């Protein structure tokens, strides 16, 4: 990695924070999508 200068720790923390935030958001969106789809499938199956 290139030299990030004296305040490297803040830069790394910033990118780490954003990375976890975005990863969490993507994870939650996918999880919610799958859970709702599964519930919908089970309800559709039960209705027929």
């Amino acid at each position: 990695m290139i030299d990030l200068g004296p305040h490297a720790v803040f830069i790394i923390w910033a990118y780490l924070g954003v990375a976890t935030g975005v990863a969490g958001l993507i994870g939650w969106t996918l999880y919610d999508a799958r859970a709702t789809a599964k519930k919908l499938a089970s309800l559709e199956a039960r209705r027929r």
Partner: protein
Amino acid sequence: MSIDTTPKQSWWNRIAHPGQFVAWTTPLLWPLTILTAVLFVVGLWFAFFNSPEDYQMGDTVRIMYVHVPNAWLSQFVYGVMAVSALGTLVWRHPMADVSMKAAAPLGALFTALALFTGALWGRPTWGTFWEWDGRMTSTLVLLFIYLGIVALWRAFDDQLRAARVIAVFTLIGAVNIPIIKFSVDWWSTLHQPASVFRADGPTMPGSILTPLFVMFFAFTFLFITLQLKAMHTEVRRRRVMTLQRKAAQGSTA
């Protein structure tokens, strides 16, 4: 509310039908995801490997590459919500309710990330994590509004009635944001002049601007992709609710 009221099937009415909207936009999901990923890779490469440090701030300017896109998104997502709110109230467009509900948590997170990166950028430049300066404070108030809207969505049982009420609050919020911005700026003296979109154009050299714009588009497409995916989920969740209601009526023994 009957959806296809007008005789001619303009595309505006056709995407009004949830099933239709999902069918049309699902093929868009994968290309958008790939585009977002590519933009992020290029952006990060530019940010870390191919841009000089700022003459004043040194390397901390690299935090700006994530801070400014998030700050911009916090405003942009609220704009999307305000337009959806208009769609709900004026044209009673069912997909407007869905997009408004899907956008709220995304906006809240981008605003929170803007504050987080702003605090980390502030530490070396101002010496403290949190400084009551104009832009940071108005972003904080915007975060409160977002979280209020998320709490409002969770508090309602009946989602359809909720959409119109929350649309009213979103519009009221939209009107108040400029007022808040102005009053906060007036209130705080310590304020860094907006260096990117100033009237006489950006004051930064091209080499810093390119990573900024690439990251900017990367985050915007990330939002669009997640928004579409969340809208699909919301459409399915409403279908689940109607099926549950039918299940209750269907089986009165």
